[in-house]
């Protein structure tokens, strides 16, 4: 039977507890992001037009009480399309961040710990990194159907090597630490060694990296949609709203700029949160 041994002692240092009050920009970024997430999840509550509802009679109308941001070339409500577009962007951002970390973390741990595996795995990762991500994504999307899953895989694939490299470098430096060697000398199994002593070292930078991946995935998805290599136009995304609006850009810049604004706000907010997380969690990376 195990009994708790420590009583009335100061709690272990919690980094979060030591966080200073966040600066205004970070608080704003968090608010913007929360608002976007709320709008995406509860999109029907925020809009009163279906994003696909065509009204050819109402093409390219200006902003009005009915259509807050006006209508597009097919008479669809631009505001509704932008609200629904947040769903795709946020799903892609979150999904890519979570999956690339979930896949990259174990690969990085293994590469950092087993030297023989390392040489092979890192050659593969070097090769993957040499392929410009956008071209890889374009190739994957153009080879198969352009569904949400395909787009996510296509965006995720070039991000994984970044995660693997980060985790690997952390493991390589952590395994030199005397406390890791002490654990080896105490007969700790490889699995426990990785889980207890090596993996915790990688988590803080991974949270930061995950945030940046989220932002970059949203950006890439928008570019793919913009280039016509993304999700089909029946599902509104910020990228394909802009792609469709381009044709009328000189006539009605709002068709491009409103969605662009939403996209930019979203990515700036995530990057700002990433910077804040980095400063709070990992002072060593602070100066980047």
């Amino acid at each position, binding site marked *: 039977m195990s009994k708790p041994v420590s009583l009335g002692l100061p709690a272990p240092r919690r980094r979060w507890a030591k966080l200073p009050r966040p600066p205004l*920009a970070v608080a704003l970024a968090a608010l913007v992001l929360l608002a976007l997430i709320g709008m995406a999840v509860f999109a029907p509550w925020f809009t009163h037009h279906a994003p696909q509802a065509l009204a050819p009679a109402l093409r390219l109308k200006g902003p009005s009480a009915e259509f807050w941001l006006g209508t597009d070339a097919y008479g669809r409500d631009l505001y509704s399309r932008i609200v629904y577009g947040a769903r795709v962007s946020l799903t892609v951002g979150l999904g890519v961040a979570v999956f690339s970390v979930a896949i990259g973390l174990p690969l990085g741990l293994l590469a950092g710990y087993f030297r023989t595996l390392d040489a092979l795995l890192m*050659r*593969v990762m*070097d*090769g*993957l*990194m*040499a*392929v*410009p*991500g*956008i*071209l*890889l994504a*374009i*190739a*994957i*999307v*153009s*080879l*198969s159907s352009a569904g949400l899953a395909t787009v996510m895989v296509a965006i995720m694939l070039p991000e994984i090597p970044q995660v693997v490299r980060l985790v690997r470098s952390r493991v390589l430096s952590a395994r030199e630490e005397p406390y890791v060697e002490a654990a080896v000398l105490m007969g700790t199994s490889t699995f426990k060694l990785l889980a207890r002593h090596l993996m915790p070292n990688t988590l803080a930078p991974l949270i930061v990296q995950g945030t940046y991946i989220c*932002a970059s995935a949203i*950006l*890439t998805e*928008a*570019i793919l949609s*913009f*280039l*016509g*290599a993304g999700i089909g136009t029946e599902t509104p995304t910020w990228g394909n709203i*802009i792609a469709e609006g*381009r044709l009328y*850009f*000189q006539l009605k*810049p709002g068709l*491009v*700029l409103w969605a*662009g*604004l939403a*996209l*930019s706000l979203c*990515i*700036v907010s*995530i*990057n*700002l949160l990433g*910077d804040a997380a980095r400063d709070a969690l990992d002072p060593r990376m602070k*100066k*980047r």
Partner: protein
Amino acid sequence: MFAYFVRRVLAAIPVMLVVALFVFLLLRLSPGDPAAIIGGDMASPEQLAAIRQNLGLDRPLHVQFFVWLWQLLHGDFSTSLMAHTGVLSMIGQRLEPTLSLALVATALTVLVAVPLGVLAAWRRGSWLDHTVMSVSVLGFSVPVFVIGYGLTTLFALQLHWLPVQGFKSIFDGVGPFAYRIALPALTLASAHIALVARMTRASLLDVLGEDYIRTARAKGLGELAVLFRHALRNAWVPILTVIGSGFALMISGVVVTESVFNIPGLGRLIVDAVLARDYPVIQGMILLTSGVYVLINLLIDMSYAISDPRIRY
């Protein structure tokens, strides 16, 4: 030094092999008949049979790979579906606008970002530093096309200073060339400027904390000598790295910028290829850009070896 160079060149070969293998597997493992993808929707059964023969689709996978690799090494990047010409010659025709755009953007980046980063690091914590840092977040967060359309709205539609789109070769005169490349180059460079300025600042701050900087100050050197002779020379390596690894970013930027400004370069070629499902062109572009990426990083590694006396074996 020579041995080091040879070793670095040799180390690039497996990377390119992995890239080739990857591109190869992408096509073979994707749903659908590779021959139909290569041949396009309009191919006749005879054409498809010829393509199958050429790819060796009846043979085992590894044999197919080496057959394909052999063709690549002989410059056979297969034929474009849109233009019915060889992929390589097609890429060659579109090279100039892209190269001009990329070079002007890179020059702009180095000229703007490095001094900004140096200033921000030197005056750390000042309003200048804060401004550079916050504007740089915007710079790499706002998508290239949004920046492009924003700049166009301002400088072309409102102020009428610059044209909305188009491209003129530098061989048609520097004036017209500069007039048309200004907005696209600025658009393309914006994300880069942000990244490089940040990296310059970070790298310089790292170096400014080093012992030898304290030594230099203890010698009584002036701030400028400390900053340029001692700090920047050591901070240069990570800055070069970010400029080099920014190449991938440059590619996506080029693709988008050329679309926004209607420039007939490689980026437009890619977009047209995507719309026409012209896989041979996409494949050729991937192989080519990966090769250039590996080459650029090779050159950067070698420049370290030349500039840093510690790397010399």
